[in-house]
């Protein structure tokens, strides 16, 4: 049988390597189906993983390695298996040794061309001596302009699944759920199950999370004599109503205050579900992960870990090879020998590390041919099994603050219980070794203690602090023994340390020799541990080899820092369903059915225009128009001390505002920068209505509360945000008075209702409305605030009653044009994050003769020194040019002296109108500047006298 035929797999895909029934098997031999692998059909049983189904048919090569494109097969036969990352349909990077195969599934190897067997990029291996880790730092430097070409070459070798297509047609459905278990147990092996049962018996609500498809941990594929205990524990868990079990689910991370993220997979209704569990206590029981051994040829297909072999034989009834050599240093390796013999594998030799044995080299390219032992003997075989040690997966514990310490005697990093917060406990293999009875006893005691502590946490969360555990006596947890283990990281040859990243121990030696001596630097330089397993398989070997290469102990060299997520999680699951609300005014249905083009303005959707903004603006100037201004911030202020608050937050004086009057105000923060503006009207002796910009509504409300709560708790002022309690309609134009008169019982004659006054009354039959006369558009106008439920009614009534007057709706764009013709500024558009009142044309408003005001010292300083730019109007020549907002203004010597902040074509004037921020020295009326258009041409721009370019006296609004 040549290597090539092995590569290509059996020509007829039959389960040639499937064993007879095994006691613990999870496959259902009564349910079989087919799926495709690289286009060819293969059989499978229900319960098979993709890897086990293929292995049962004799497939040994599943992928090609990242850098050198060496053929790779199974190594761990678990979720972490680096040799088995596959493309399933349109889903890249699927873990083939964990994903259950489904009928009709289309599975392909990743990044192999033209095929898995004959991958062209394998030519890299010949160049391996010239392409050590980090080689790209030493070349491709010049000429610099060639880098894009070099980069394309490097990208060709980027290893990973297919990129998503731009128009993905199979959007997944993802969901989220909040949970509040008393005790969350991460890991469903014997210790985890014992903890869950004990915690439940102690009265706790328990959530038990297990990464595999079924509970049991290593019991599932371990000693068959322990299977009855496994069944009993599973039954006890299943029948306990206090325990919620999530299988095929993984704990992604433990965040502050035991916020635990759990990813639930394999659901029918949704692709994946993110469970956000705020656990009171967390019990971490992840077991142990078996470590690979580093030696020459350790990545050749046919080299497996003992746990891989035991899984394949016992769970999936798959014969992993025919003639095996086992290198063992512990009980798992010994048990693997037994399992292999039972499966009919010819175990040619057992090399015992405890007796001084070693493996030095595997021979073979596409598959194992022979192995060289420590004493130089060579054994021809097709399967090499190693059992050289364990890594404690301490990630959840380190996320909780644990700093693992290296224990030479057991050859692993172990958690330090004193570093854990009181609401996190650990049990099982991650803490120590022991018999099944010892693990169960430890788990049970831990579960009882977790339940006790959860009760304490529960009472604390009703109170103020997150610290201390409480005074009840804690449960005594018996110590777990920790078995001695030989320190076996690397043989005397060099081999692969990070299988996913194709980093060898030689690379690590080279990195250390070149000065990248700390574990962190060595990892970054070689990219070791940066693959999908994120170090779970390789970190300890990396640290040990860096220690070896730099002449230090493992403990001196480093520890393992683990970051969330523990397992890779899709963006879809993290995002869940989109939940960003949008605000609509009550009149929005009318806007939509009348052709409004929507404008997203922060949290709101508004009508930008209804088809012809210039015509809308003209209608306002000539007849009357109405606009929906509901998003304007509105705050109801009541109490005897309101005027003191207004005096504090506005830059102008507010100690006297008579009932019925309205005043414009601008606000600054303590740094003297303009923060917001609006009008405030006095509706009664202790009743005011404040308006703010739409985007500033929430901020201003918080700002007022800040002053009242922290500086003046003695003042009596109540602030109630009423932005959405009122629908707001602005009626503007020469005929607006006529129209409003038809709507309201309030006397709107010029004498009874002058400019900048406020009245309350009935509008369109609706009580409790507020009307004020203001002039943002520069026309005679009234702003109506009506209880929101009646907004649409008032809107429609206004339009019908004003039909003969030529009323039409106008949108935000028309309003922008109108206000610009009048030179009215918009905070946040004509001002920025540094604009002070003087630079907003508001210098005249500022009064510094106060005991206190926001930003008072800065306002006084501005008055004295007066620097900063000025807000000016501009007229362009030619006058028809409408430059984009943001265009730069240049002085005659070509230096920048300002920018255009607002720019529109004025229908009323037939030319462009502009506002700009210009350096004070260039801001005098009549000053000539150059304006730069985007294409580089410049036109003339003259500073106008005053900001208003239409009706500068303001006659129309005051009528």
């Amino acid at each position, binding site marked *: 049988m040549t290597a090539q035929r092995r590569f290509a797999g059996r020509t007829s895909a039959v389960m040639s390597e499937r064993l007879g029934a095994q006691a613990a098997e999870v496959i259902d031999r009564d349910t079989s189906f087919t799926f495709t692998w690289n286009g060819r059909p293969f059989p499978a049983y229900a319960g098979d993983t993709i890897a086990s189904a293929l292995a049962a048919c004799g497939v040994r090569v599943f992928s090609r390695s990242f850098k050198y494109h060496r053929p790779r097969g199974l190594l761990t036969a678990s979720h972490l298996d680096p040799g088995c990352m596959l493309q399933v349909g349109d889903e890249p990077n699927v873990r083939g040794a964990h994903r259950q195969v489904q009928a009709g599934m289309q599975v392909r190897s990743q990044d192999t061309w033209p095929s898995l067997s004959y991958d062209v990029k394998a030519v890299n291996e010949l160049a391996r001596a010239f392409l050590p880790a980090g080689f790209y730092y030493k070349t491709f430097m010049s000429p610099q302009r060639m880098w894009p070409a070099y980069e394309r070459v490097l990208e060709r070798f980027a290893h990973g699944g297919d990129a998503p297509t731009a128009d993905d047609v199979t959007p997944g459905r993802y969901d989220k759920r909040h949970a509040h278990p008393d005790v969350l147990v991460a890991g469903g092996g014997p210790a985890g199950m014992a903890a869950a049962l004990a915690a439940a018996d102690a009265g706790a609500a328990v959530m038990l999370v297990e990464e595999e498809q079924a509970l049991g941990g290593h019991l599932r594929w371990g000693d068959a004599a322990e299977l009855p205990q496994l069944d009993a524990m599973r039954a006890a868990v299943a029948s306990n109503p206090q325990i919620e079990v999530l299988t095929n689910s993984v704990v992604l991370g433990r965040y502050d205050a035991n916020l635990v993220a759990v990813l639930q997979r394999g659901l029918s209704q949704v692709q994946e579900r993110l469970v956000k569990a705020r656990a009171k206590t967390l019990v971490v029981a992840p077991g142990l992960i078996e470590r690979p051994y580093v030696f020459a040829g350790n990545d050749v297909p046919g080299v497996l870990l003992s746990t891989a072999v035991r899984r394949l034989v016992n769970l999936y009834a798959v014969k992993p090879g025919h003639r095996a050599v086992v290198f063992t240093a512990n009980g798992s390796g010994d048990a693997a020998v037994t399992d292999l013999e039972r499966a009919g594998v010819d175990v040619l030799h057992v090399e015992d590390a405890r007796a001084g044995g070693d493996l030095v080299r595997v021979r073979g390219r596409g598959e194992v041919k022979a192995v060289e032992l420590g004493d130089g003997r060579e054994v021809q075989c097709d399967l090499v099994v190693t059992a050289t040690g364990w890594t404690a997966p301490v990630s959840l514990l380190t996320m909780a603050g644990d700093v693992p310490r290296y224990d030479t005697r057991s050859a692993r990093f172990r958690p330090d219980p004193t570093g854990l917060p009181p609401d996190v406990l650990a049990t099982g293999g991650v803490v120590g070794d022991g018999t099944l009875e010892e693990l169960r006893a430890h788990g049970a005691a831990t579960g009882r203690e977790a339940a006790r502590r959860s009760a304490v946490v529960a009472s604390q969360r009703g109170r103020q*602090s997150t610290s201390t555990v409480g005074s009840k006596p804690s449960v005594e947890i018996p110590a777990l023994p920790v078995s001695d283990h030989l320190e076996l990281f690397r043989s005397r040859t060099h081999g692969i340390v990070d299988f996913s990243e194709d980093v060898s121990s030689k690379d690590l030696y080279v990195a250390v020799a070149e000065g990248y001596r700390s574990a962190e630097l060595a990892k970054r330089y070689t990219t070791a541990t940066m693959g999908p397993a994120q170090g779970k398989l390789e970190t300890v070997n990396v640290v040990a080899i860096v220690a070896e290469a730099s002449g230090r102990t493992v403990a001196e060299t480093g520890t393992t820092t683990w970051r969330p997520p523990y397992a890779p999680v899709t963006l879809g699951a993290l995002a869940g369903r989109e939940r960003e609300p949008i605000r609509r005014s009550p009149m929005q249905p009318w806007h939509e059915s009348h052709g409004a083009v929507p404008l997203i303005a922060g949290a709101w959707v508004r009508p930008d225009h209804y088809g012809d903004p210039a015509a809308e603006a003209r209608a306002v100037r000539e007849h009357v128009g109405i606009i929906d201004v509901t998003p304007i911030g509105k705050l109801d202020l009541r109490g005897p001390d309101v005027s003191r608050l207004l005096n504090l937050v506005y830059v102008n004086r507010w100690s006297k505002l008579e009932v019925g009057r309205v005043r414009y105000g601008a606000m600054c923060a303590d740094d003297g920068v303009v923060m917001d503006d609006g009008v405030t009207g006095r509706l009664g002796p202790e009743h005011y209505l404040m308006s703010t910009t739409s985007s500033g509504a929430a901020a201003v409300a918080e700002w007022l509360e800040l002053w009242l709560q922290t500086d003046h708790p003695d003042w009596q002022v109540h602030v109630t945000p009423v932005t959405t309690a009122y629908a707001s309609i602005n009626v503007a134009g020469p005929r607006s008075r006529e129209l409003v008169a038809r709507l309201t019982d309030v006397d709107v004659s010029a004498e009874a209702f002058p400019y900048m006054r406020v009245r309350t009354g009935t509008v369109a039959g609706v009580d409790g409305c507020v009307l004020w006369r203001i002039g943002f558009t520069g026309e005679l106008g009234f702003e109506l605030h009506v209880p929101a439920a009646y907004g649409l009614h008032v809107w429609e009534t206004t339009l019908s009653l004003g039909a003969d007057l030529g009323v039409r709706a106008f949108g935000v764009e028309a309003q922008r044009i109108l206000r610009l013709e009048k030179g009215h500024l918009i905070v946040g558009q004509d001002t920025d994050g540094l604009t002070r009142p003087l630079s907003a044309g508001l210098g005249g408003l500022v009064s510094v003769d106060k005991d206190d005001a926001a930003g008072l010292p800065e306002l006084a300083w501005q008055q004295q020194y007066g620097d900063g730019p000025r807000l000016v109007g501009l007229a362009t020549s030619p006058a028809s040019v409408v430059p984009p907002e943001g265009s730069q203004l240049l002085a005659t010597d070509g230096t920048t002296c300002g920018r255009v902040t607002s720019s529109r074509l004025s229908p009323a004037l037939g030319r462009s109108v502009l506002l700009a921020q210009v350096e004070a020295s260039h801001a005098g009326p009549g000053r000539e500047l150059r304006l730069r258009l985007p294409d580089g041409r410049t036109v003339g721009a003259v500073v106008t006298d005053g900001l208003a370019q239409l009706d500068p006296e303001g006659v129309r609004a005051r009528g």
Partner: protein
Amino acid sequence: MLVPCPWCGLRDAAEFRCLGESVTRPDPVGVSTQQWRAYLYLRDNVAGWVTERWYHRMGCRQYFLVERDTRSNEIRSHPADGRQPR
């Protein structure tokens, strides 16, 4: 992170807005520009326990003080009544 609101108890930090380390606002009348700008801009920015002001934006809408260790994000109620937030 859970924040101990004096009125609502321990709530998720996402419900709040943090206003930063508690600083004393000088009397704006008579203060020098130098002192005012020191109040505006200079901060201790301690790596350790700090007294800071929080606002329960999606809750009781009250301002209050807490103490927090900026190295570990351990947080505790203000020893004096945090409901007096200045």
